[in-house]
């Protein structure tokens, strides 16, 4: 008679899970005990993380790279609570993660017993769904349901909370469900009306200055090829959101970069100047479009493709054509419709205007005054030594905004960042998850010093489990992005952002058994990467960045895209 814990492990194996990121404790120990057999048979790997936040980010990174749900586990109370930030990060970015948490035995509940925490109460607001298991017999079905909910519709994290007594209960008859059964849950219908497709295509063909805005939906539906094809056929430039960036190879000549708050000025300007916007898989968040006035005040036509109709219903602007469906499917239909009409478009003027914008703003971006290492040049140096398909993760801050604008993604799904909720500390654990999902790829975490310090304890995991990743620390001894905002918008009143001389990143890396590099010029950086790549061991490369470097372009808080700041206080001017 299998125990509840055995059912948990067998159920996740049946879902095709290859790796679990977690930390054991009293309440999930029965699961670990059952896991032993699977580890021995090498059916599943367990990666012991150093903090549960890292476990959730690693599962998230795994999911973003593989497209399959990432799995993490934690014990009750503090263990489960430590998952919160990681799960919220996955929720905001629609990443399918399944978290399995142990809970105190049912008889102990409500007594402030040891390591008791109301996981349902806490998690239900930061996850797509949380289920508390009531009977051991329902474990197989609810694990299946959890994977189903996590991966379908708009993906997101699901938490399965299991009281310890149920993990130890033996079940005499086990039913392995073939299909999930979740009452009151529906996968969004992809009912694409051919008339809408045709209307959209006509508007796009007749447009003088159309643009495609690519969001995370293109990433999740693996629709990169389709979006490029449509752009080519329509001779239509592309801009993206931060998460949509990962869907577009940047050597595509009509890609202008990420638009929005810290986005590329040419992307913002092209968006403003366009007469038709085709939005694919983006919800027009406040980061992408800080002020809806930019849409309201124009007579642009808006075509929106989204799998979730409620995202479109929430838009406070008029949408000319709404198409509800999976991005890949809709894009294919749009392509077929364009081909079917057989009309060719030239758009020479628009393309040359877009190129003009690109060239114009490049003059501001690629400057080198010889004062310290320039972040854009650091990224370029790294790009040149990495294979096309290297995966990059980031922390949150200036370095992230700089990577958003200057890291060249060359293959889809190779750029992972916390876009929706902006979680510092995402970089290293997400890199671990990415490397576990794709051990064949080079994985690099481009991190800020502040972000790295939040989850750097997981360096130990990369050594213990031989998960070699390369961490590049943009070391400005500061919470740079906050400092920049204080400098620009709080009258230069700098407070609570500067670090002292601690730590020494090389010694820190070495203490973990990683390689540590301190670079002082681009050549050093190149050399450090060569060694890191050839040694195949986790490496930490500290790149000094001046504390007063800015991440530009930016906007004033709540500002319009028109107010994009490309040069300020002598920076980039």
């Amino acid at each position, binding site marked *: 008679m299998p125990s509840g814990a055995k059912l948990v492990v067998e159920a996740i194996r049946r879902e095709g899970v290859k790796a679990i990121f977690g930390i054991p404790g009293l309440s999930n120990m029965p699961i670990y005990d059952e896991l032993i057999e699977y580890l021995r048979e090498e059916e599943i790997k367990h990666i012991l993380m150093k903090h549960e936040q890292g476990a959730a980010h690693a599962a998230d990174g795994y999911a973003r790279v593989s497209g399959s749900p990432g799995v993490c586990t934690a014990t009750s109370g503090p263990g489960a609570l430590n998952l919160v930030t990681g799960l919220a990060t996955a929720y905001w970015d629609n990443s399918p993660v399944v978290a399995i948490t142990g809970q105190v035995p049912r008889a102990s509940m409500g007594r402030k017993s040891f390591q008791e925490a109301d996981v349902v109460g806490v998690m*239900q607001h930061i996850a*797509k769904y949380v*289920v*508390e298991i*009531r009977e051991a017999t329902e474990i197989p079905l609810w694990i299946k349901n959890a994977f189903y909910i996590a991966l379908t519709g708009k993906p997101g994290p699901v938490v399965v909370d299991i009281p310890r007594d149920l993990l130890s209960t033996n079940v005499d008859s086990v039913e392995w469900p073939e299909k999930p059964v*979740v009452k*009151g849950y529906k996968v*969004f219908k992809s009912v694409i009306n051919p008339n809408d497709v045709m209307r959209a295509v006509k508007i796009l063909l007749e447009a003088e200055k159309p643009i495609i805005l690519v969001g995370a939906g293109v990433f999740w539906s693996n629709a990169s090829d389709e979006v490029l094809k449509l752009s080519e056929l329509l001779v239509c430039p592309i801009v993206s959101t931060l998460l949509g960036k990962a869907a577009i190879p940047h050597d595509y000549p009509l890609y202008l970069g990420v638009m929005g708050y810290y986005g590329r000025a040419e992307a913002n300007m092209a968006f403003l100047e366009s007469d038709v916007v085709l939005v694919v898989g983006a919800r027009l968040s406040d980061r992408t479009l800080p002020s809806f006035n930019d849409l309201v005040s124009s007579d642009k036509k808006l075509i929106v493709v989204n799998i979730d109709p409620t995202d479109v219903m*929430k838009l406070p602007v008029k949408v000319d054509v709404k198409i509800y469906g999976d991005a890949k499917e809709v894009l294919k239909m749009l392509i077929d419709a364009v081909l079917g009409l057989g009309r060719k478009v030239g758009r020479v003027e628009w393309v040359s205007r877009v190129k003009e914008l690109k060239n114009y703003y490049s003059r501001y971006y690629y400057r080198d005054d010889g004062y310290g290492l320039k972040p854009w040049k650091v990224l370029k140096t790294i790009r040149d030594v990495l294979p096309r398909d290297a995966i990059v993760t980031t922390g949150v801050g200036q370095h992230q905004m700089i990577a958003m604008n200057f890291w060249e993604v060359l293959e889809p799904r190779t750029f992972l960042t916390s876009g929706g909720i902006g979680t510092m500390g995402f970089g290293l654990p997400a890199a671990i998850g990415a490397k576990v999902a794709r051990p064949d790829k080079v994985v690099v975490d481009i991190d800020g010093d502040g972000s790295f310090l939040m989850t750097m304890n997981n360096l130990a995991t990369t050594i213990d489990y031989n998960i070699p990743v390369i961490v590049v620390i943009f070391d400005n001894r500061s919470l740079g992005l906050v400092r920049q905002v204080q400098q620009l918008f709080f009258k230069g009143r700098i407070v609570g952002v500067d670090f002292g001389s601690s730590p020494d990143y090389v010694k820190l890396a070495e203490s973990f058994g990683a390689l540590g590099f301190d670079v002082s010029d681009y050549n050093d950086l190149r050399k450090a990467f060569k060694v890191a790549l050839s040694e195949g061991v986790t490496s930490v490369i500290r790149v000094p960045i001046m504390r007063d470097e800015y991440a530009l372009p930016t906007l004033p808080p709540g500002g319009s895209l028109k107010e994009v700041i490309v040069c300020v206080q002598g920076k980039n001017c």
Partner: protein
Amino acid sequence: MFRGRIVRVVCYYRDASLLEMIISTFRKLLIDIDWVYGRKVSDDGLYEVVLGVRDSRNFKTAVLDLSNTVNVEVVEVLGDSEGGNYITNESINGNEVVKIYIPKTDIKECYSWGEVCG
């Protein structure tokens, strides 16, 4: 007649967190709730929860979010016509202990996982 907005949520009960989720959808959008009642409708766990909430610019967002919440089958926005009434129960020592407003309603719009009905 109730001056706020009336919402009927048809949903499946797994545990009482269902009610928390419904209520918090309004709470998260700073919408106040004047009254609420709910009941089990069928043995397979179908519930209906009816809420009277204050009108708000966030009302539509709340309804849409609720209509995309796991376990929620459909969310109806009800119109309240004249003739709704209060049922009160004054049985304990003559004190009014239960007061439920039963609106006389018709469905204005309804939402279910991206589908619009009504």
